[in-house]
């Protein structure tokens, strides 16, 4: 309850400051103006949310799939790990904001470049955690498995992979908080729908409250994705309470 109470307090202060200082809504809207926009623009925001949710969800799944595939390949090939891991780190130093326009040129203005941007943003924390998680398997368990007819594959399936799941989910939870921002970057680089597009359109029109309303929805989406990941973890990793 305490975070909620603090949040309410901050919103209250924000409302009071804007009103007492007579700040115009287009300069900095009060929470009440944002709430009015959330309700008044619900049609616009609703259809934009559907577009962005799709980008976030599919992009995130793409990130998880690629991250697991690469993490497992790196795990099975130490030579590949030594060669590729530094490159993966290097790839993270390229700002996604700059990558998005290039992807739009290469992949067009459909959903594909947005998925790729979301995936690029989300992929890294999952891969790093998965690689570490797979390597962290208890050597004693592996020795025991080897004397129990355990092949390399059996050791991976029954010991290393389940053991790495908590780490993989840690990475996925971090990634979940990045996904919404990734979708917005993707939309900014070229799109005709979505919450990022709504923000882009509202800015020159000085519809500041609508920008804030879109941001509120984006935060809610990020939180929801985080919740879904945490829930999935609870179902799939019940031993790690």
């Amino acid at each position, binding site marked *: 309850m305490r975070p909620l109470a603090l949040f309410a307090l901050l919103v209250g202060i924000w409302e009071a400051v804007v009103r007492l200082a007579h700040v115009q809504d287009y300069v900095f809207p009060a929470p009440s103006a944002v709430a009015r926009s959330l309700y008044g623009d619900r049609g616009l925001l609703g259809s934009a949310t559907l577009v962005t949710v799709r980008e976030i969800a599919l992009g995130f799944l793409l990130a998880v799939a690629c991250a697991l595939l690469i993490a497992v390949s790196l795990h099975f090939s130490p030579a590949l790990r030594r060669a590729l891991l530094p490159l993966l780190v290097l790839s993270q130093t390229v700002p996604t904001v700059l990558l998005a326009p290039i992807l739009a040129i290469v992949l067009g203005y459909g959903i594909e470049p947005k998925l790729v941007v979301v995936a690029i943003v989300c992929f890294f924390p999952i891969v790093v955690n998965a690689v570490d998680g797979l390597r962290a398997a*208890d050597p*004693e*368990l592996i*020795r*025991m*498995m*080897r*004397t*129990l*007819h*355990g*092949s390399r594959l*059996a050791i991976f399936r*029954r*010991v290393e992979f*389940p*053991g790495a*799941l908590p780490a993989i989910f840690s990475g996925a939870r971090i990634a979940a908080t990045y996904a919404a921002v990734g979708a917005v970057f993707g939309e900014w680089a070229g799109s005709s729908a979505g919450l990022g597009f709504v923000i882009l359109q509202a800015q020159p029109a000085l519809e500041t409250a609508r920008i804030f309303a879109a941001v509120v929805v984006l935060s809610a989406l990020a939180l929801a994705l985080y919740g879904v990941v945490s829930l999935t973890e609870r179902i799939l*990793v*019940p*031993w*790690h309470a």
Partner: protein
Amino acid sequence: MLRTADVTRILGGRRVLDGLSMTVPEHGRVGIVGRSGAGKSTLLSLVAGLDRPDAGSISVGLADCALMPQRDCLLPWRTALDNACLALENQGVPRAEARDRAHPLFVRLGLAGSEDLLPAKLSGGMRQRVAFARTLLADKRVLLLDEPFGALDAITRSELQEWLANALEDEPRTVLLVTHDVEEALLLCDRVLVLADGRIAADFEVDVPRARTDIAFVELRERALEAIA
């Protein structure tokens, strides 16, 4: 049967095992006792085929031996019965069939009712019994026990020692037991070897009644302890 001949293993420049020779007859039970760092675990790794000697030979390998590690090493994501089934599933037996095949032993070891509990819900003694079921179900002719009860409290330990002695009467295997607990070795084995400086320093036939309070047993224990010191 299990035989090592002149086995030497050098680790970090130290001769951890130095020309060690010993024999465990078929269905015999030999205990290795010694101080920490005497080379007990190194010997088990070599016999298990998880490590190679620098010199000498060992008559068995990975295909013959099942290792019961010091900690129970149960997989926390598998239920008790599924943990016991590990070796069967590793050999490609489908899960349902593996469970069916493992269940009678599971019951015989006094584990009925805890089939579907995760290891976190089991007591230390039960976890150790599941680990023993898992080791037996690997169906190897040699069992390697590495301080099997080291992590348990004294009462559970003495209960399980008695229980293990009975279980091995029912399911005779060639057993190599490594422990720092001389009494445990004397209770469970028919021969106890003292390992010191990488060699067998003393060799005791356990021809006394297996009772902690028996005078002959106590005398044998004192002699073994002296040999270690």
